[in-house]
């Protein structure tokens, strides 16, 4: 497809090594590792309090880590803010929609990154709406998302379509990684299936997709690899070949391994 893949399929784009994060007395991450590869969907799973959201916030620049290293394309990076992560091509789709219901799809796609007219008008801050509209249409087309109206406020779209606008926005700007935090949590069955299709299409453009989900069936349907967090550490990293829901649940809860269940000092 038209996007240049950040690396060839399978290259490790985003890695974390030995990440710890302390909030006061609470140790949310205790030496967590993580790997996401180009052109793959990596599912990040774990029970509540396992440290998933903390890890994602560190990897997307929202928090800094207490210790440990984040590597992009194999080189260490440090993010002072989400904008740093954006600049490097890492985008996040949040669980609660980050779209503006009163504005058009293209205004939402270019939210905070509006295209300006060339020349003097641009320097005065005049918007280049035709360009934004055209590029949004291209992005929707590339991901095969059909919106019934490119100019109506997206409040007139269904919840699933609004979610796909949010996902397409992340995909349009992400050069390397798209994080998706429970993208199907609020969706019905049909919409969920369509959103998972969208996830696959984004993966096929060559970026790494990281899917945070509680829904094990979603994970098995769409993931290439599954990273399991428990008590602030990665305790498994498996290829999605012949994995079953009980396998995943077992890994998450510790039923399948020998790590003692009651380790101190971890909370949500």
């Amino acid at each position, binding site marked *: 497809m038209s996007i240049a893949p950040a690396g060839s399929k399978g290259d490790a784009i985003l890695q974390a090594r030995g990440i710890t994060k302390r909030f006061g007395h609470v140790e949310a991450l205790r030496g967590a590792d993580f790997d996401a590869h180009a052109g793959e969907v990596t599912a990040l799973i774990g029970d509540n309090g396992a440290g998933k959201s903390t890890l994602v916030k560190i990897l997307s620049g929202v928090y800094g880590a207490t210790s440990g290293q984040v590597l992009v394309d194999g080189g260490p990076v440090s993010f002072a803010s989400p904008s740093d992560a954006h600049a490097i091509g890492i985008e996040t789709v949040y669980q609660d929609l980050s779209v503006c219901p009163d504005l058009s799809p293209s205004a939402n796609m270019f939210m905070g990154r509006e295209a300006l007219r060339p020349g003097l008008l641009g320097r005065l801050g005049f918007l280049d709406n035709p360009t934004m509209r055209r590029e949004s249409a291209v992005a*929707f087309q590339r991901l095969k998302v059909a919106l019934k109206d490119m100019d109506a406020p997206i409040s007139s779209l269904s919840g699933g379509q609004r979610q796909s606008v949010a996902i397409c926005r992340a995909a349009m700007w992400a050069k390397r990684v798209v994080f998706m935090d429970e993208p199907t949590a609020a969706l019905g069955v049909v919409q969920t299936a369509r959103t998972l299709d969208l996830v696959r299409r984004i993966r096929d453009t060559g970026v790494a997709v990281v899917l945070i989900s509680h829904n094990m069936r979603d994970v098995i349907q769409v993931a290439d690899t599954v990273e399991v967090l428990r008590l602030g550490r990665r305790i498994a990293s498996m290829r999605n070949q012949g994995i079953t829901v009980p396998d995943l649940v077992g890994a998450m809860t510790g039923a399948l391994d020998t790590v003692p269940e009651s380790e101190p000092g971890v909370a949500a």
Partner: protein
Amino acid sequence: MSGDAAIPGPAGTADAAGLLAPQGLGRKLKAAAASSPFYMGIILLLLVAFFSFLHPATFASSYNVRNIFLDASVLLILAVGTTYIMIAGGFDLSIGSVLVFSGVVAAQVMLQFGTDSLLTVALGFVVALACGTAWGVFNGFCITRLRVSALISTLGSMGAALGAAYLVTDGSDIRTVPNALIALGHGSVGGVPWLVVITAVVSVIGGVVLHMTRFGRHTYLVGSNPEGSRRAGINVSGHLLKLYALSGLLAGFAAMLSLGRFSTTTLEGHANDPLEAITAVVLGGTALTGGRGTIIGTVVGVFIPAVLANGFIIMGIQPFWQMVVIGFVVIAAVYADQIKRQKGERL
């Protein structure tokens, strides 16, 4: 609810053709016809037609039309600022008091300056704009940094600014205004009063900036989803601060026009300005919840009460009826808007 999260297009190119097709004129007209400014514009035209038909010699006289426009001009300047604030999901109750304060300080400075020239007037403008902006920045600071709600912050500065204005003048109006400013307030160019020309220019600039620039776009985004805007890298607090400063600046500007028109600081005359501005903005279709609104709607929203008041006086009806009618019309307009929205919105 038939969710179409991501309809796989039968053929991608066909989809794109549909998406890329420029907005049809018919569709554009249809969208415009469904908007509040359009409905309200029709109502305004009907009112004008009604009064003109009943009283062509008085209502439709050039003198009366001129009066309606003059009465509306100062309020419209304030309402332009209120439109920005409300699209961003905010409130500014202080504009009337800020107008009075800016006018009082500017009048005082011009008085002290002594000479009666365009230079004096220019100085007055600088002082009034600075005073207005300062109050606006103060409001913005309280709202975005101290996180006191907009309602309370601007309620507080509404009282404080008016009190300060009384302190400056010892409670009585300053009635010495430079003749050069009065000339501006009463003069006209090609038969159109300067105040009306200036107000039109301010409104057009306000509309262009709101609808065509990134500043305007951010105003809508911030009002529609502040948290999402923050995540998208928009400096939400900074933008809100600028909007309150703008609202204050316009109040300062309106203060000078008011001085020019009335030749006095009108200490008592602006208590209702913020509510009238909010009424006009809401009549024009701006959502109280932010994210939606237009300047043209606000223009219509300013003129409906102005025409109604004027028409009632001419018909010999007690003008107080205008307040009663407008009160109910605002409620009806917002109700109609909600119904329309519930129909259009799919959740």
